[in-house]
């Protein structure tokens, strides 16, 4: 244990990773075909929106805020694509993808402006945005619209041997990986942990915050596409399902709500763990009400364990 604990301290996502691995093994026991090549693309495709919504929640948390509107943003993007862009003939990927990503990032940026410039509390700003997005989704797609054949199906299926989900998750991951190599992520983490310190040291925390929410919006946009890939219709009622899921994934993955600690890897493993848990409970035929119960219980246990046994205690005035 003495050798294991420091690992957990070093990598905040280690707990979620462990949990995901355990759940993966259990899933394989309950349903041996779980990872069979035939099922894998479908499985990954339903996993992708989870992961991406988790990604989308992460940058704002790292920046010391919170964004509870990423789930509704993903559904809004889904409605936008299916109910507006496709009928308007803007559905081809080279038109739709840029439009969608710009819109999503723009909405994220708007959140950022509300938080950083208007200086609303992040919960207030993003709750307001949540209401707006749900209203807009219902306005443009009151009723579910089935999507004609379109390019997002690739994200649910695959290109050759590559499952399509790798594409959507991969793009988001790459963006983050590229940013990690710049000073941006350091600036972001410092801002999240102590905006006073970052500001006093010359970091432009306003821009950092706006960019963090923008990045979250961008990831939520990708999540919206991944969602469209599996539902192939506009589903405005999905907002409720995803509203707080991303948050749960991010926090389970070791990202601290106090800001400044965590990363996308945590959200990835957190989302995978939640997904695998649902999968496990489903496969073992548990009553639906108990799926929810178990989801809640694991979330609590995970967060409590992750935050106490395993997180480092910063020692003030260490000897």
């Amino acid at each position, binding site marked *: 244990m003495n050798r294991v604990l420091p690992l957990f301290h070093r990598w905040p996502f280690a707990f979620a990773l462990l949990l995901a691995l355990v759940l993966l093994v259990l899933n394989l026991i309950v349903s041996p075909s779980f990872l069979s090549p035939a099922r894998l693309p479908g499985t990954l495709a339903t996993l992708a929106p989870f992961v991406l919504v988790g990604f989308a929640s992460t940058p704002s948390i790292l920046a010391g805020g919170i964004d509870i509107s990423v789930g509704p943003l993903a559904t809004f993007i889904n409605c936008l694509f299916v109910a507006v862009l496709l009928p308007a003939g803007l559905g081809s990927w080279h038109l739709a993808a840029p439009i969608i990503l710009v819109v999503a990032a723009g909405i994220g940026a708007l959140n950022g402006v509300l938080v950083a410039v208007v*200086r609303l509390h992040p919960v207030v700003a993003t709750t307001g945005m949540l*209401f707006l997005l749900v*209203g807009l989704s219902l306005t443009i797609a009151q009723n579910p619209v089935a999507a004609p054949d379109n390019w997002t199906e690739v994200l649910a299926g695959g290109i050759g041997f590559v499952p399509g989900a790798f594409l959507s998750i991969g793009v988001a991951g790459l963006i983050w990986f590229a940013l990690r190599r710049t000073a941006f992520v350091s600036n972001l983490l410092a801002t999240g942990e102590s905006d006073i310190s970052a500001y006093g040291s010359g970091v432009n925390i306003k821009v950092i915050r706006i960019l963090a929410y923008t990045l979250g919006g961008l990831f939520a946009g990708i999540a919206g596409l991944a969602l469209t890939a599996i539902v192939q219709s506009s589903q405005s009622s999905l907002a409720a399902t995803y509203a707080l899921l991303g*948050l749960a994934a991010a926090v389970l993955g070791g990202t601290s709500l*106090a800001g400044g600690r965590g990363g996308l890897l945590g959200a990835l493993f957190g989302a995978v763990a939640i997904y695998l848990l649902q999968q496990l409970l489903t496969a073992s035929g548990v009553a639906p009400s108990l799926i929810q*119960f*178990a989801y809640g219980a694991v979330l*609590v246990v995970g*967060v409590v364990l992750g*935050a106490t046994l395993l997180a480092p205690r910063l020692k003030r005035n260490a000897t």
Partner: protein
Amino acid sequence: MTLPRTQSPKAPAARATAWARFRARTIEVPALQILVVVALAAWLVITMPAIANPRSITSILVITSLLALAAMGQTLVVILGGLDLAAPGYILFGAFMAANVAGKLAVPSVVALLITVVVCGGIGALIGWICHRLTVQPLVVTLGIGAAITGATLFLADGDYSSAPPDALRSLASLRGTTFGLPFPPIILIVFLCGVGMWLFLNRTAAGRRFYATGINFRAARLARIRTSAVWTIVFAASGALAGVAGTFIASFGSGWSQTIGEPYLFSGLAAVLVGGSIFGSIRGSYTRTLLGALILTLLSTIIVSNGLTEAQSRIVFGVIILTVVSLYGRERHVRNRF
């Protein structure tokens, strides 16, 4: 302790002008909210003179009361600097107790209420205690517990959503109900008394001060010998119990329940707290504000309904209102002023 009186204080460096005082006061008192309430009410009365009848007013007040009751615990948690995402779970449980236990199994209403308070309060207490003890953020813990309560309640209900709460409970929230012979239902009085009680507690008791202090600066509160663990436990317990009771009232008012009965109250309850102008972990948070916030939202949605706006449009209006109203008076301080 007596101390020598040294020379009188040097001329106060900060002699606030009357104007600055006035501004500070208007921020302390929810003046803007009162103004908004008056404006909305005036608008309603002018555009729809027919609304000025006792029954319509009672109806608006009852709906406000339900929202305010559901947001009461949330107010406390927000003052403590957190969010209680378990509220839908508590409300669902309370509704289940009202309909299936008090209604179908004919358990006396008082007993059902008591069970609700004990169960939801107990779970809340556990959340508060755990979050305090292990220093974890309540946000995700309450989210998880909320899901767990929902799951457990649905498991208990086993698909039975057809019972109605007993008449004893229904008369508490019924528009036709009377209170001591007066023509309004008891829930209005109950929420009003809660408002008065909360005001006294928050502003006029030592416990209220300690509670605020814990929300504002947890470490300093401990060092000021406040039992922060008790504060957290009690606040989350109160949040649970109040939301549970709100659930029984909501089910009694609507004469029934369903799986998603609590969900609308999470976000609109939070909206009531925010529009009221309570600020996370600050002295500027009170239940009076939440009452005003609930009234604003109810008036607003009444206007929306009466103008034939759709659900979609009403959501958009809510979003815009939260953003504008809070940016008018609830802005955070600039970093440069937090140095």
